[in-house]
């Protein structure tokens, strides 16, 4: 199980900001695959250049096996100020 958060343009593409995925969400790659199967545009947007992933509020590079109740956030290029 994983809570998935989308930020910036990703939530515009998906039409949602937050969802809980149940079965089959055991890794970041698995989450990407689940979401891409449902929504090809979102699947593409999740692997666009500059999109980072945070698991439980820490940026991770590459894939990661998730614990139960992980929070997985997809972060497109950032800009504040």
């Amino acid at each position, binding site marked *: 199980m994983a809570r998935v*958060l989308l*930020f*910036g*343009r990703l939530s*515009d593409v998906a039409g949602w900001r937050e969802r809980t995925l149940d079965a089959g969400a055991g890794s970041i790659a698995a989450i990407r695959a689940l979401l891409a199967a449902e929504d090809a545009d979102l699947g593409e947007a999740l692997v666009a250049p500059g999109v980072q992933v*945070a698991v439980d*509020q820490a940026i991770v590079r590459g894939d990661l096996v998730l614990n139960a109740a992980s929070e997985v*956030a997809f*972060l*497109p*290029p*950032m*800009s*504040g*100020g």
Partner: protein
Amino acid sequence: MIRLTDQAFDAGALLNDFCMGRIESGAVASFVGIARAEAGRAVALELEAYQGFTEAEIGRIADGARTRFGLDDALIVHRVGRIAPGEAIVFVATASRHRRAAFEGCDFLMDYLKSRAPFWKKEHGPDGARWVEPRPQDHTDVARWD
């Protein structure tokens, strides 16, 4: 101190509070980022943060800046939500014994906030909205510190 707020803030009051009681920090540099109207093309900005994560990331960078530049103190206040042209988006202040460190620390923090801090910025205009990403200049600016 790091603070996110969805309300308009008073940059002058923040500056005065930040300066108050300083008798050994001779230098306070500060910066106010203001939402531009872009000659009518921008009706509002919308700033999104990742609550908890955004404050923590900025806090880590601010702590690093304190050490790197020898700052006595640093303050970052950042708006989230909808911001009208002319309103302040961000206030950054740095204090140090001499001015060089205060300027560099403030400049560094702004470069970081512009292109590496976890915010997402949408510009609403008369013809719809667009996501704003860092300009090439912003990437050049932040790379000065790497």
